[in-house]
């Protein structure tokens, strides 16, 4: 009995050590990569591309479903982005509210007889709208039968006339120079590698004030849940993705904001309808396609905060979101199981996929098993309590250290939270996160796995308050997530 318990504890302990080592290694690589990025970037003048005839054309594709309350402002914000050669394609995915009417009246839209090529199959297109006002000549609205986010994005991809496409959530606020920064990795290569995708940092807008689509004040959210997610996003984006990009193992570019080579996206078959994690699945499929066709490529990531989004501030919505993410992860891993430890796919197969499988998919299961196991041992009086608390402290102090390193990275790079009180609020969240937030996230992930076993497919509901606007006393609104989830920070 004791021997069996010993073996189980050893396995859990070794897993724990592995995950800690992996996190620290990724953090170190990210930090180094960021330093290199900032040094190189200090010689970049983004404004030169603003008036250049060589600026490649871009399409911004936003799917929208029942976004009536914010859709007009969001489109205006997108049209005001700094870039000289882009189009905004908004796909109204069968909204049942007055989204389309609002767009028609505010942007002087007229239904046009424009044929959309069917590179990718989608639900029926009901109409294509263009503005009669030259000020909105960049705008195209596609009205279609509801088919979900992936289907709407595919319709936007069909309608795009540019070489590069960026798919963004309609309610995200982009930095005005976001497109300038995102296109650069596609243009700066001097080797034969083709850049197939580029992603940037997504930050949390809860607590920030946004006026006319621009972020005017950045603050740490007042309530606990969004504030902990700030930490989570900083950790993931600053201490994780940069390292994966450097290792050429990037598996996920947030659905909230990513720029893609349209040619490859279409050759891969566009967004899939088979998973709720269509953003991650697309990146994996694109990379797989390039490997299978023996084309040299790269998927890049830049550490600049380019996109601001609102995150859930209630346990119910957060739980639904996280269980959806975990379902999406499993679905993607399952679709691409052929990559697992397959040397044909290089680092994608030998490093990224196994990491994702072990530390993203298995971690919640191992944690949950560990908790259940602890209760059983406690019941059987088989716990060495001194050692138990020692191990608990070991994990807790590591979690604190890792979060502190993330805050340090943020301070040294972007220093977005300038007030000292914001810093202390973050520290307070660092101390509480492992005890309250993390167990809840593990529980939600397990709920997602169980949901998947029982065939759950829906997006669930997401309530948004509308960032910054709540301070002006505007009402809250609810929308069904046929449209847009928050970007994953994992």
């Amino acid at each position, binding site marked *: 009995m004791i021997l069996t318990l010993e073996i189980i504890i050893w396995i859990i302990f070794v897993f724990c050590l592995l995950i800690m080592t992996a996190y620290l290694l990724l953090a170190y690589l990210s930090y180094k990569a960021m330093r290199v990025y900032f040094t190189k970037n200090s*010689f970049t003048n983004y404004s*030169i591309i603003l008036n250049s*005839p060589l600026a490649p054309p871009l399409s911004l594709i936003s799917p929208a479903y029942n976004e009536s309350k914010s859709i007009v402002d969001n489109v205006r914000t997108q049209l005001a982005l700094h870039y000289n050669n882009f189009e905004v394609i908004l796909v109204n995915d069968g909204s049942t509210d007055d989204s389309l009417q609002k767009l028609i009246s505010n942007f002087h839209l007229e239904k046009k007889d424009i044929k959309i090529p069917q590179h990718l199959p989608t639900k029926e297109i009901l109409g294509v709208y263009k503005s009669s006002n030259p000020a909105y000549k960049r705008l195209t609205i596609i009205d279609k039968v509801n088919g979900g986010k992936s289907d709407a994005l595919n319709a936007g991809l069909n309608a795009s006339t540019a070489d590069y496409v960026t798919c963004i959530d309609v309610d995200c606020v982009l930095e005005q120079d976001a497109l300038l920064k995102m296109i650069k990795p596609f243009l700066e290569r001097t080797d034969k590698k083709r850049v197939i995708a580029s992603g940037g940092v997504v930050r949390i807008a809860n607590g920030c004030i946004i006026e006319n689509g621009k972020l005017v004040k950045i603050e740490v959210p007042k309530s606990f849940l969004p504030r902990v997610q700030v930490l989570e996003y900083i950790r993931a984006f600053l201490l994780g993705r940069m390292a994966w990009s450097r290792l050429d193992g990037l598996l996920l570019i947030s659905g909230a904001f990513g720029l893609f080579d349209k040619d490859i996206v279409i050759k891969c078959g566009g967004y899939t309808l088979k998973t709720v994690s269509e953003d991650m699945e697309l990146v994996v499929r694109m990379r797989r396609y390039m490997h299978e066709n023996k084309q040299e490529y790269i998927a890049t990531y830049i550490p600049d905060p380019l996109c601001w989004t609102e995150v859930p501030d209630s346990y119910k919505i957060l739980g639904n979101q996280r269980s959806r993410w975990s379902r999406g992860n499993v679905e993607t891993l399952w679709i691409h199981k052929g990559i697992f430890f397959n040397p044909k796919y290089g680092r994608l197969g030998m490093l990224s996929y196994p990491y994702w499988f072990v530390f993203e998919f298995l971690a919640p299961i191992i944690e949950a098993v560990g908790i259940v196991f602890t209760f059983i041992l406690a019941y059987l009086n088989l716990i060495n309590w*001194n*050692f138990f608390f*020692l191990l608990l402290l070991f994990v807790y102090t590591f979690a604190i250290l890792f979060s502190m390193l993330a805050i340090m990275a943020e301070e040294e790079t972007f220093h977005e939270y300038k007030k000292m009180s914001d810093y202390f609020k973050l520290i307070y969240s660092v101390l509480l996160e492992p005890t309250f937030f993390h167990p809840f996230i593990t529980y939600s992930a397990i709920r997602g796995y169980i949901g998947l076993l029982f065939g759950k497919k829906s997006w669930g509901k997401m309530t948004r308050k509308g960032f910054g606007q709540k301070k002006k006393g505007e009402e809250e609104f609810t929308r069904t997530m046929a449209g847009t989830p928050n970007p994953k920070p994992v």
Partner: protein
Amino acid sequence: MTAVGIENSINYPFANHIETIVVFSILVFTYSSLIVFLSVIILRMRKNRYDKHAEIVKSSLNGILMSAAFASTDEELNDVLAKAKTEFTRQVKNSGMALVMIKEVLTIHSSLSGQSKNNLSRLFQETNLMSYTLRNLRNENWHVKASAIRVLAQINAETHIPKIEKYAVHNNIYLQQVAQIALVNLKGYDGLDFLGKLKNALSEWQQIHLLDILRRLDREKAPDFSQWLSNKEDSIKLFSIRLIHFFQQGYNSDKLEEFTHSKNLALRNEAVAALEKIRPGVHFETSNTVKP
């Protein structure tokens, strides 16, 4: 601390083995977290202090720069320069402040023209800001070198062009790009000479940069850009076609026609686009051209 601390607790040999490591790790994690916590506070305080100091330096510098820029006689300028030399010598000892000062001089320099601009160039060259910049040009770090090159270009230090030229084909791609931009800024069209010596590709981003500078120059003085059409590097050929296109060098259309059969899709498309523009009325079959 023992592994069997609480009465009736079970004793695992495993726990005894690793207890010391775990305790040590907890201490390391805790102290490291504390160090990071304090470091952030110190970092913030240092940044605040630096910003305040920079503001003071800027405001004191501003008076000198304005006096130099708008000095009406040589004597007046010499007086200001003498004062600047004393003031700058003290400040340039601090590398951070030297950069603040250079940035400030360049900002004002770029907003001026004529004699005032020349006065500021002279102030830069005759004070130790120039020696500081040239010292940076000899630095081993590529980014320090690149910063110095950029400063020399911004201050129109034409006498130092030979020092910059060797970096235009340097192995470090970033240093190379900064030097190329500096040379075109300083020498105009003649600055493109590096194209004939370049061994690597010219990125799209760099082409955008160079074109941005070239389009501000006198079109009448533009050289024959077809000289790089025979370069081994496709990206340089592409850039030449784009230049011929942008500068409407119709006399090169025969040379461009050869590229309409190129195996390289980007070259083919660019040649067709250029020909349609510089030879109005002539339409090329584009059925075999696809977007790159």
